[in-house]
């Protein structure tokens, strides 16, 4: 186990290095930030001074070398726009995004697994068919448009929920600002989280349903029933434990995608997270922030994958972590 984690960590460092190179070179190719940052009326001397101040006068390898040296000390560069360290800027916004993503995933899991089980146990019933039709809708609804419609209904027409922002936050453990501890915080959180959850909800319903249908055909389910176990136990233990394996894997892997998709939801609901920061940064070509965001995301993905693998081996006794799974 420990060996596995150490080896994976070493691999991760390599992946991070390669990604930093790709991202840096890619983002370097984006337009010229000076044109956006500097007042067009500024004279040549001002321009050159600004270029030098941002380090844009150096060659690409030089800039990358400087970036890499900084990165080793935990410095991912300074934002062109905010003049603060890019990493700090992102970390400051991260709790908002993580809270949104966790809440969305929780909604998807708490609704998706029971609904999927229901549809899987009674695939031909009215409820089962309705759930499946709903899941197709969930796949098809464009996230941003659903967000707008939620605002239209619950903020504009009914006036129940605020349409944007995060509202007041409470400090969790004295350091993490979160919304879910106060009622007003929830009123801000519930709409964006539901919006973000919709796609994953549809995915989990389908996955659970397919898994349940397959598990129900297995002999071990019939044997469990032949042992005289109650239906609740057959489904809750024998079926669920088996379909939990793919579900946990997908939940883990999809968590990264939820964080990425938060970009859209955050833009719709003006949620002050990392995604909104990325969009703003792309619009003003704030290179260091874009690069830092991507590296943070890649890092998150690596951590998530590691957690998924460890969980996977805990759930499926047939998997041994020493056998590397790519």
């Amino acid at each position, binding site marked *: 186990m420990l060996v596995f984690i150490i080896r994976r960590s070493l691999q991760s460092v390599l992946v991070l290095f390669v990604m930093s190179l790709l991202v840096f070179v890619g983002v370097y190719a984006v337009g010229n930030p000076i044109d956006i940052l500097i007042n067009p009326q500024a004279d040549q001397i001002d321009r050159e001074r600004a270029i030098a101040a941002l380090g844009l006068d150096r060659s690409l390898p030089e800039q990358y070398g400087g970036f890499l040296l900084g990165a080793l000390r935990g410095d991912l560069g300074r934002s062109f726009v905010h003049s603060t360290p890019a990493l700090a800027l992102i970390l400051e916004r991260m709790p908002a995004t993580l809270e949104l993503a966790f809440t969305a995933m929780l909604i998807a899991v708490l609704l998706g697994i029971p609904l999927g089980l229901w549809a899987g146990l009674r695939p031909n019933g009215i409820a089962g068919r309705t759930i499946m039709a709903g899941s197709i809708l969930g796949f098809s609804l464009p996230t941003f448009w659903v967000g707008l419609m939620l605002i239209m209904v619950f903020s504009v027409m009914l006036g129940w929920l605020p349409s944007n922002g995060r509202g007041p936050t409470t400090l969790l453990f004295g350091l993490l600002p979160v919304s879910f501890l106060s009622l007003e915080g929830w009123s801000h959180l519930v709409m964006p989280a539901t919006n973000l959850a919709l796609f994953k909800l549809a995915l989990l319903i389908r996955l659970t349903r397919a898994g349940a249908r397959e598990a129900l055909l297995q*002999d071990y389910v019939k044997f469990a029933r032949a042992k005289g176990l109650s239906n609740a136990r057959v489904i809750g233990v024998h079926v669920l434990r088996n379909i939990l394996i793919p579900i946990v894997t997908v939940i883990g892997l999809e968590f990264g995608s939820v964080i990425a998709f938060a970009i859209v939801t955050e833009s719709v609901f003006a949620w002050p997270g990392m995604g909104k920061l990325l969009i703003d940064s792309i619009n003003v070509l704030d290179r260091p922030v874009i690069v830092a965001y991507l590296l943070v995301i890649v890092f998150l993905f690596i951590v998530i994958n590691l957690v998924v693998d460890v969980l996977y081996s805990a759930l499926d006794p047939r998997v041994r972590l020493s056998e590397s799974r790519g």
Partner: protein
Amino acid sequence: MSLPLLEVAGLRTHFFTKAGVVKAVDDVSFTVARGEVLGLVGESGSGKSMTGYSIMGLIDPPGRLVDGRILLDGRDLAALPAEEMRHLRGNRVAMIFQDPMMTLNPVLRIDRQMTETIHAHEKVSAGVARDRARAALVKVGIPSPDERLVAYPHQFSGGMRQRVAIAIALLNHPDLVIADEPTTALDVTIQGQILFEMQKLTRETGAAMIWITHDLSVIAGLADRVCVMYAGRIVEQGRVADVLSQPLHPYTQGLLDSVPSHSARGARLRQIPGMTPSVIDLPPGCAFRERCSRAAAACAVTPQESWRDAGRDERRSVRCHLPLAGGAQP
């Protein structure tokens, strides 16, 4: 004669599929006495497994018990509420399945899969349940049971898994064990061991057994009586010795002829011509008549089971208009 342990009468289990009604079990009647071993023989699709599932109350939609009684100690299982039926399963009637690779849940530990069977029927402490599970493993001949209890199914061989399944089936000392081809998926040497083990265990505990198989040679050594099934019906039943030595139904004769034996060495094995009919929307009449050399016009009418005395307080039946000459005449 005393009341049999199990009496199945006029059992019909049909599957209502889009393609038509499948009469998987069609008017099946037999009895099992206490401690008796009944063989249920037939090709795949003959309805022998479905008969077992019907007794267990494990028929899933689109299948349904449409008619008949299943009396266990005089109580009709077919009319029992679901919760009471659940309480009988794994307790008074247990079942063992064909493929031991598939019957144990791959992600649950053996001890859990065993103790839950006890807890489903009795309120006992976890320690007691565990002791009983351990004892059951010892009884089916599994070495170092303490280690094995905390193992997962994938750490067992096929034969060992079937022993575990048998141990689970016998945990609550059932009166009746339904064994659905439990040796078919195993190596020949293991088959013999399991057969021997099952025989020994049922004799020790006094449990009756229904042994479902397609293999007549297994029945010959194991069962007291045998039912031969074809296309959802019992075509012949009686004492094993009688049925195997003097078959009345042409199908039974066909089955016997296709078993290789010493006496007919060198001779070409005879096969039953044709194929098992599809049991979807089976027309009336004898289902075997298309493959039967003795078929006549009368066979277009469904034959009823006709019973005759077989001596020594035993009876046998055949479902054929033109039975073979053998067998004791009344």
